[in-house]
Each structure stands twice: as structure tokens, then as C-alpha cells.
């Protein structure tokens, strides 16, 4: 990779926009991914998937929720079409994440945007949007560093879970199942703190939590997340306008 001249400054290996800095930004999420990835690997193995199948899943699907669902539905002997359909709905929220990131990658070509989007997850989104709070645009190299580190860690965690699954009888005993909620809590609080418009943000956050609880009674879990996000963001937008 050649060094690029950007706004008259040379990008050295450790500037804020470099690939390595993206790798570094990913480090706080590694433990969370690792525990969820291990758990996913264990569940997939228990569902009767082979090691090559598990690897293929983590490489091609690369989505925790989707992989848990696939394993669960395979164990329940669901058809491939039913599984694909369910996964589609569960991961539709990525539309919103991808849309929210798009203003920060306007300087890139569609192909480069596609490469960034391919490895988008809740966690890399959380890290990226927090970085974006201080900037007008995000660096492609930084984002790839973040994405690729998360991706490799996920595949490794899945493989380890599939391989060592039989020895980890009860990951919940060690509180590992709380890694995911804790990471979401961290990403939410860091965002709230970094944006500096506390009142509107807090109102949107509380709305969204209330909505997701209420909606869970009338629709599926993944759909209630999407609906809550759309409604709460719309409220935030409307309130901001009237002020």
C-alpha cells in the first residue's frame, strides 16, 4: 500500500486516520466479540453443524444474531428458506446503520463503500459513529482496520467455540453472556457523552427503550428494534425542528 498525500500531509502509520489506528480502535470490542463468538461456535456445534460449516457461516454470514438463529432453527429441522427469511428480518436493522454511516463516506466510490458495508456490524458501527462525532468524514483505511480486525476476531472466536465447545459446559456461569449487553451499554453511553446534546439524545434514548419494550409484546424481537429505532429517531427529528 502506497502512502497517500492528503491535504498536504503525509499519512504515516500511526496517524489518526491510518489502518493501524483502526485496528487499535477495535481492541475494546474484541473481548465482547470473543465471548459472543465462542458462544455462537458452541451453539452451532451443539446444533450438529460441522467445523467447515461453522467456519463458512462465520466467514460468509458474519452476524452473531443470524448465526444463533440459523443454529437454533437447524436444530429444530427448519427449511433453509425459512431460516434465510428469518435472518433477513433480523438483520434488516443494518439498513439503518448503513444509512447513518453513509454521510461520512461520501468521499469514497460506491465500490469502496460496498467494501466498508460488507463488514458492518452493530459493534463496528458503534465505534465508527463515535469516531464520527468529532469529524466531517471518516477515513477509509481507519474503517477497514476496524472492520477487518473485528472480522478476523469473530472467525477465530467461532472456530474456537466450535472446537473447544465440549469443555465449556456453561459459559453463563462466568457471566460471559453479559458481554453483548455490556458492550451495547458502553457504546450507547459513549455516544451520549460524545455528542454534547444531552437533552434531545436522552429523550430519544428513553423513548426507544420504552418503545422496544412495548413493541416486544406485539411483534418479533428484531422487528421491534427496527420499529423503535424508526419511531424514536423520527420523534428526535421532529422535536429538533420545532425548537
Amino acid at each position, binding site marked *: 500500500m502506497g502512502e497517500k498525500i492528503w491535504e498536504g500531509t503525509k499519512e504515516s502509520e500511526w496517524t489518526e486516520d491510518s489502518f493501524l489506528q483502526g485496528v487499535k480502535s477495535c481492541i475494546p470490542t474484541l473481548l465482547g466479540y470473543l*465471548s459472543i463468538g465462542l458462544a455462537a461456535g458452541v451453539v452451532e456445534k451443539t446444533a450438529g453443524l460441522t467445523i467447515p460449516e461453522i467456519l463458512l457461516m462465520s466467514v460468509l454470514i458474519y452476524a452473531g444474531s443470524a448465526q444463533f438463529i440459523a443454529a437454533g432453527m437447524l436444530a429444530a429441522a427448519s427449511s433453509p428458506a425459512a431460516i*434465510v427469511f428469518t435472518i433477513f428480518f433480523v438483520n434488516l436493522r443494518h439498513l439503518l446503520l448503513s444509512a*447513518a454511516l453513509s454521510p461520512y463516506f461520501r468521499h469514497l466510490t460506491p465500490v469502496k463503500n460496498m467494501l466498508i458495508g460488507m463488514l458492518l456490524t*452493530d459493534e463496528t458501527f458503534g465505534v465508527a459513529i463515535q469516531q464520527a462525532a468529532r469529524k466531517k468524514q471518516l477515513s477509509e483505511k481507519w474503517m477497514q482496520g476496524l472492520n477487518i480486525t473485528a472480522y478476523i476476531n469473530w472467525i477465530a472466536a467461532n472456530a474456537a467455540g466450535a472446537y473447544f465447545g465440549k469443555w465449556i459446559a456453561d459459559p453463563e456461569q462466568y457471566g460471559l453472556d453479559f458481554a*453483548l449487553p455490556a458492550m451495547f451499554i458502553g457504546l450507547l453511553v459513549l455516544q451520549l457523552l460524545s455528542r454534547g446534546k444531552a437533552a434531545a439524545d436522552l429523550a430519544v*434514548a428513553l423513548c426507544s427503550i420504552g418503545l422496544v419494550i412495548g413493541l416486544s409484546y406485539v411483534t418479533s424481537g428484531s422487528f421491534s428494534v427496527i420499529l423503535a429505532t424508526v419511531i424514536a429517531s423520527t420523534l*428526535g427529528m421532529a422535536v429538533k425542528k420545532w425548537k
Partner: protein
Amino acid sequence: MEINQDVLLMIIGASIVTLIPRIVPLMLLSRIQIPEWGMRWLNFVPIAVMSALVGQELFISDGKLSFDPEMLAALPALATAFWTRSLLGTVIVGILSMMVLRYLF
């Protein structure tokens, strides 16, 4: 390599339906000028989606509001995030809190 044909079909299908929502908005919206109200809306999406995910993880189990040790473990995690602004610290404190709670109850 032992890969069942139905499983392979499922994996390929699932990889396509998880790929499309990830790439389409990034590819299209970065090309067009988003109106001011659209930007304002998108600006709230990160807060709203993370809150919804947190709400679902903490308060919902089997489609119902439920009170689990998870809600208690969330408090030290919240405090850690607030005072240290460290993502890794938050995850570690959360896991440890949950471990202690599971040990106690």
C-alpha cells in the same frame, strides 16, 4: 470437507440477505444529496438503535418484560461507561458483575 447441501444453500442465502442491507444504503446514499431533515433523522439513528438493543437485552426475555439479574449487572456497567468512558472497562465490569450475581443468586 463435510458440508451438507441444505446447510450450504442456507448459508449462501443467509449471506446474501445479510449483505444487502449492509451495503445498499452506503452505496446509494453516499451518492445523493440527503435533505436536511433526512440528515437530522439519520443523526438520531445511532442513539435510537443502541438504546433499542440495550432495552431488548436488559428488559425483554421471551417477548415479555422480565426482571433478571441482568438489570442489576447493568448498573455497574453503566457507571463504568459514564466515569471511565472506556468500552473495554465497561465490558469487563459487566461480565464480572454478572459472574458475581450468578454466584450469589
